[in-house]
């Protein structure tokens, strides 16, 4: 019985982690950028959805949609304010761009965190669930919303896979992650592909953020831990590898759930961190890393 509970609960949270981390890893794969304002994107989506549903009475779906649009806008803001100026700066040596982008996105994330804390306080907000009621999954009473989260996450990832493998723009995106220079030689504008990948990232992180808001709630205090968990998942799975991130998301999600159920909910993040350190020592390129 407990085993089933862990299985069902872990599946929902892992699917959410996977969706958030896939966007994060896509950006790294295509442009080599690790976005440390990632948690900010997710929380912005949840906050805006909550605000719009509560104050403008748009209904749950309309609010979720506006939340996702806000996440896309925030992703573009991150790109234009904290990433592109550094990529183009002449004063910063090439080999140090990476660390400068890490620092600038980190600062950008802190700015959005303090701004949210100032305007909305640090209290967590809960977005109303997309569907009410409970269903029985493997004889475990589960909120319908939790089932919907898992289904939606996989649906979105399936759509992403279709986009990358079947459309021209998607194939260009994939090519950019393999060999950007060859792609520009073929006549593709790399900067437009970067814009595309940030837009896709905004959609993925936005959906993940709104769903997280309906499930666990969101507050400005979550921004750091959300970024850290996405960062760990992506490293565990192998930097830039989407399938690796998926596997790692379930590893981390299930370890957290098992610890929360069997040991103590307050310790849920510890085993995943220890596994991460061990993996780095034994297999630093991650589960499906390229290097």
């Amino acid at each position, binding site marked *: 019985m407990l085993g089933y509970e862990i299985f069902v609960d872990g599946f929902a949270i892992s699917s959410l982690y996977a969706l958030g981390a896939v966007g994060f890893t896509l950006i790294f794969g295509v442009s080599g950028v*690790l976005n440390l304002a990632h948690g900010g994107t997710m929380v912005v989506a949840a906050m805006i959805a909550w605000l719009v549903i509560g104050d403008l009475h748009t209904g749950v779906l309309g609010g979720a949609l506006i939340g996702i649009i806000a996440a896309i806008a925030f992703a573009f803001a991150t790109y234009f*304010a*904290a990433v592109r*100026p*550094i990529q183009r*700066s002449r*004063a*910063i040596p090439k*080999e140090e761009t*990476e*660390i*400068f982008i*890490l*620092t*600038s996105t*980190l*600062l*950008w994330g*802190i*700015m959005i965190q*303090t*701004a949210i*804390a*100032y305007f909305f306080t640090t209290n967590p907000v809960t977005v109303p669930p997309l569907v009410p009621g409970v269903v029985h999954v493997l004889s475990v009473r589960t909120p319908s919303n939790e089932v919907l989260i898992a289904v939606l996450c996989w649906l979105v990832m399936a759509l992403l896979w279709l986009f990358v493998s079947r459309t021209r723009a998607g194939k260009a995106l994939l090519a950019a992650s393999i060999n950007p220079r060859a792609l520009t030689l073929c006549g593709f504008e790399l900067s437009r592909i970067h814009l595309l990948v940030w837009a896709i990232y905004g959609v993925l992180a936005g959906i993940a953020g709104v769903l997280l808001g309906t499930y666990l709630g969101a507050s400005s205090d979550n921004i*750091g831990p959300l970024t*850290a968990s996405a*960062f*760990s998942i992506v*490293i565990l799975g192998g*930097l830039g590898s989407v399938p690796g991130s998926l596997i790692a998301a379930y590893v981390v999600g299930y370890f957290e759930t098992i610890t929360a159920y069997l040991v103590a909910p*307050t*310790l849920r*993040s*510890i085993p995943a*961190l*220890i596994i*991460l*350190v061990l993996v*780095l*020592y034994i297999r*630093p390129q991650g589960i499906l890393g390229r290097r």
Partner: protein
Amino acid sequence: MTRSLLSSRVFLGSVVVLALAALVPFLGRVVPFIAVPYALGVLTSAYYFGVFAMSWDLLFGYAGEVNFGPTFLIGLGAYAAALINNILHWPILPCVIAAAVAALAGGLMLALPALRLRGPYFGLVTLVAVLLLQDVIVVFAHWTGGEIGMTVPDVLSISADTNYWIALAFLVVSAAIIYGYARSSLGLILQAAGQDPVEAAALGFNVAKHKLAAFSLSAIMSGVAGAMLIFYLGSASVDVVVDLAIAVQVIIAAVLGGRRTILGSVIGAVFLILAGQVLLPLGQLSTFVVALIALLVILFFPDGLLGQFLHVGERE
């Protein structure tokens, strides 16, 4: 020639700044309306913070390694000193030495394998280290006081003046050690290893060994500074010596002051702490403003405050 001129400029500048710093305790006799003990208190914390930032810059600016968890080393030192002082009742000096040993041992255990990895992996391990340390402190709340923190029975001094002099002396000694190391031939090799490890290795230098030496020095200085800070404050808590927010502040201070300058980190740290005090009326928004300033500096003056100054000197 330029090099010696520059270093003499830096040296002269440091002497002037140091003389000004030594005058602060006597300000009250000249302008009586300034709250001198308050100003001294702010500067005392800022000086310890400066040592944190210098230790970080040695790793980042010279060894080319991004340590996202300077507070792992600082926190290890601080908590080791606090626990020993509380449980074994050792006096302050042995506690501080124990703090250095603890920070060095903990740092080596965790970072030694990570130093051999390339790319962002070292950064990640150090980030995880902070999160783990924070969890461990909370789990063993029975001894460590958990999230609330613990008081230490011994303090350095209860006089603001004495504390200020101790902090200033500690800052000067630390700066001399770290700056001297960075400017020595060892520092040059380290810089080469950080910028092009393959070429440095081809020249016959053991890159891992030099990075390890720099990391050890950084760990010892961080641990000692962490211990000194809690003996100044009289308490150790996660919010003051371990939290990621503090780690971020250390990084901001070093980058703001100018990476690969060591002394710039002190300027950055003092600036950051003073800005925090000046912006205090803004409440929660003060962090926002500090982060914004730091972001603007990174975007427009990536060499930082002191770096900018030195570059202007180079062009002349």
